[in-house]
């Protein structure tokens, strides 16, 4: 009697388990057939300077309905197929690239990234150049400033190229690494590691790597959780903290706005971004490197693009050399410059256009010339 009951229960459990497994398989099949999800797994490591960094010596794939590419990092977490020593070889012009996933070259293979394209064109033009891609997905300018100080300058760059994306506005505030006090940039926190530790832990396991890199349903569930649970909770949290801070009069954003009580959130984001960029430029100038910004346009349609780069006053120190490829993009009317079903990074065509534009811009502005840089001077080496 007892045994037959146990058998029944076991059968019931097996049936439930089988149904669950079947549901997972059916959902995975549905996604693959009708609504493929881009799989762009990325593991992080915690760096010595308290930020997220790319994993060392990793070779993995990004698979989307539009492309399948390889991402390889070297022993320093730099996207490269070789080791790059800090010491610079004689006669080599070094360009350090700072940026997020756009800068790192999501959406294309290493040889197709805009940095590789730029390097190729510079070499063809007789400049013995070497680009070190220090891009890390989801980075903002605040993290890029820290990376430049802690890592980038060790490469003795001649030119620092920063791939600037409009998401940097929010990321700079979110990271809370820097803030504005009486209009001045101050370091607020030593570390910023959102989900880095848990990712570092999970990505240690091959099983998890396989799931993250191959199961569309897993990514889908994560997206759903983000969209319907985490995002609303984050919104409620932000609103609550805004209410609390407005009542107490000393909340985060209020503290950030000490300089100007009438400053809106957008103004604060903009001013903070400009101050961080100025700081990056100061770092470059004091280390005898030039600084150049690549303003990544926002795609409205295949023919319409928009720049969100902050306008700032153009005195000699604060004036940035900003390259915007919008005009070049418009010449390629209707062609696919951004991936359309894969989180919107550049296609190989987009990278070619950007790489060429950057090389020409660097030449035309003399950013790789042999003059030495002056602290208060223009962007001449």
């Amino acid at each position, binding site marked *: 009697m007892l045994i037959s009951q146990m058998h029944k229960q076991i059968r019931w459990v097996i049936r439930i388990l089988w149904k669950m497994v*079947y549901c997972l398989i*059916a*959902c995975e099949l549905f996604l693959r057939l*009708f609504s493929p999800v881009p799989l762009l797994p990325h593991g992080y490591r915690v760096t010595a300077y308290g930020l997220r960094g790319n994993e060392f010596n990793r070779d993995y794939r990004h698979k989307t309905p539009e492309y399948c590419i390889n991402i390889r990092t070297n022993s320093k977490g730099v996207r490269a197929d070789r080791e790059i020593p800090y010491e610079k070889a004689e006669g080599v012009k070094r360009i350090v690239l700072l940026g997020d996933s756009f800068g790192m070259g999501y959406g294309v293979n290493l040889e197709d990234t805009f940095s590789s394209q730029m390097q190729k064109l510079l070499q063809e033009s007789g400049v013995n150049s070497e680009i070190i891609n220090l891009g890390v997905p989801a980075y903002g300018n605040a993290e890029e400033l820290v990376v430049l100080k802690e890592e980038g300058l060790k490469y003795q760059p001649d030119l620092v190229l920063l791939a600037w994306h409009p998401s940097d506005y929010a990321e700079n505030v979110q990271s809370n690494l820097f803030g504005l006090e009486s209009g001045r940039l101050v370091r607020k926190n030593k570390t910023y590691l959102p989900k880095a530790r848990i990712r570092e832990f999970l990505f240690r396991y091959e099983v998890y790597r396989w799931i993250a890199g191959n199961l569309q349903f897993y990514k889908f569930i994560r997206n*759903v959780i983000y969209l319907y649970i985490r995002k609303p909770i984050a919104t409620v949290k932000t609103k609550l903290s805004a209410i609390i801070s407005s009542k107490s009069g000393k909340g985060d954003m209020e503290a950030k706005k000490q300089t100007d009580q009438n400053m809106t959130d957008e103004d604060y984001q903009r001013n903070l971004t400009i101050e961080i960029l100025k700081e990056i430029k100061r770092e470059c100038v004091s280390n005898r490197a030039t600084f150049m910004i690549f303003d990544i346009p926002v795609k409205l349609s295949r023919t319409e693009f928009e720049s969100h780069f902050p306008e700032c006053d153009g005195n000699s120190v604060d004036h940035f050399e900003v390259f915007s490829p919008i005009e070049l993009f418009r010449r390629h009317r209707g062609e696919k410059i951004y991936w359309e079903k894969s989180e919107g990074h550049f296609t190989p065509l987009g990278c070619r256009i950007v790489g060429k534009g950057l090389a020409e811009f660097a030449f035309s502005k003399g950013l790789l010339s042999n003059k030495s840089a002056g602290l208060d001077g223009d962007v001449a080496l």
Partner: protein
Amino acid sequence: MTAMQRLRASMFLIFVAISFLGLQWRAVKVGFSEWYPYIIVDWNNLISANPKYQWMLLGVFLAIVLFNVVYSFLSLLRSEHRRRFFLVFSIFANLIILGVFKYYNFFADNFSALAEALFNITPNVGVLNIILPVGISFYTFQTMSYTIDVYRRRTEASCSLLEVAAYVSFFPQLVAGPIERGENLLPQFQCSRTINYVDLREGIWLILWGLYKKMVVADNMARIVNRTFAPFDNLSSTSVIPEDGVRLLVAIYAFAIQIYCDFSGYSDIARGTAKLLGFNIMVNFKLPYFAKSPIDFWRRWHISLSTWLRDYLYIPLGGNRAGAFKLYRNLMITMLLGGLWHGAAWTFVLWGVFHGVILILYRAFAPKSEEVQSNWWTSVLKGILTFHIVCFGWLIFRAQNLTTIGIFLQSIFLHPYCSAEAIDCLKNLVFYSWFLILFQVLQASSKILNPMVNFPRFLRLNVWIIVIMSLLCLASKGGQEFIYFAF
């Protein structure tokens, strides 16, 4: 989705949840506590975003309810003469409210235009700058059916303000039907209800299936339709006749699917929600695109309106028992008013006339052939022909002006070329509607509206997976208002 739409949707869901839990806890006791949830109408649905109108519209709504309650009292009078007088008074009051809100501006504009054309004078007819309460056509017709049924002694008069208010404002079907009859819904407020597992499952299925029809099929069809019709919505840019007639034809098919899924989706959600509350409301659509004749189509499409028009307009006019001329006249009047019910515009009038003409022609020439046993192929051909007749009607319905209809017909018949964009539209049409079509074929072949009950468990599980995953992955991002909210 706008913030207001999101708010509305969340209020609706919260309301469903509260009502549902409330009913469960109160364990189906009869009394005031039973139907109070249905009286608390989601006023966001009835009013526009402009708050200054809400009290006025609340007043209108309460006036409609009051008219009917007062009439219910008066119906207890013994004198037939007085009963008839108050019936006419009640109907008149309902029609005045509907007329003022919905048709006044239309008739005023056309009167001015006519006077100017005929007598070269511009009469000073004021235009009412008021908004149209959502669903006014539905709840005025619902209240009228109640008063007429009371007069005809088909429904017992309810002398309770709350009961009538609950009937008129029963929120699942308030804004876009089905137009419920008092004889079906009122007794359900009066008796105890039980909600069992089967009702629960069916209710959830109907809600999901309705959402699937609306969010996955209708809203994605809307993208094809709006993109194709957009250049013609503005008269100034309609001079060029498109060279790819196939694209326009696909857009008409897409609109046929859109309007069906949009409206029947709402009806399914309404039925499902009502089921979760222990109510049964009428089926509003019975596979209309499987109709084999125009008459058959009207037996399957918006059943609550077509039966309303049949019972309260067509039959009182004499129906089909007063000779051929009167039959055709009655058909034409019924369809014309049915068209006008949808909106105050000439295209709706024309749509009604078109269906009137089709029904007259069918009555005149087809009855003999209907008696002939048709084989499978003939049935299919008849179905295809009926579908295309209906599609022509949808073109009239969707076009903003007569010029657009002309351009579409010229393009389809004189330039039937297939562009890359037409293929793209067709691909999207098939991609978003294949499962609906397959399911409807199953419904038609099994002759059951909910074939899920007969499916083996394994198949049922797969259908649930497809519907839920489609809702999560394929639902249109923009979100569109229900078309019939405008009526």
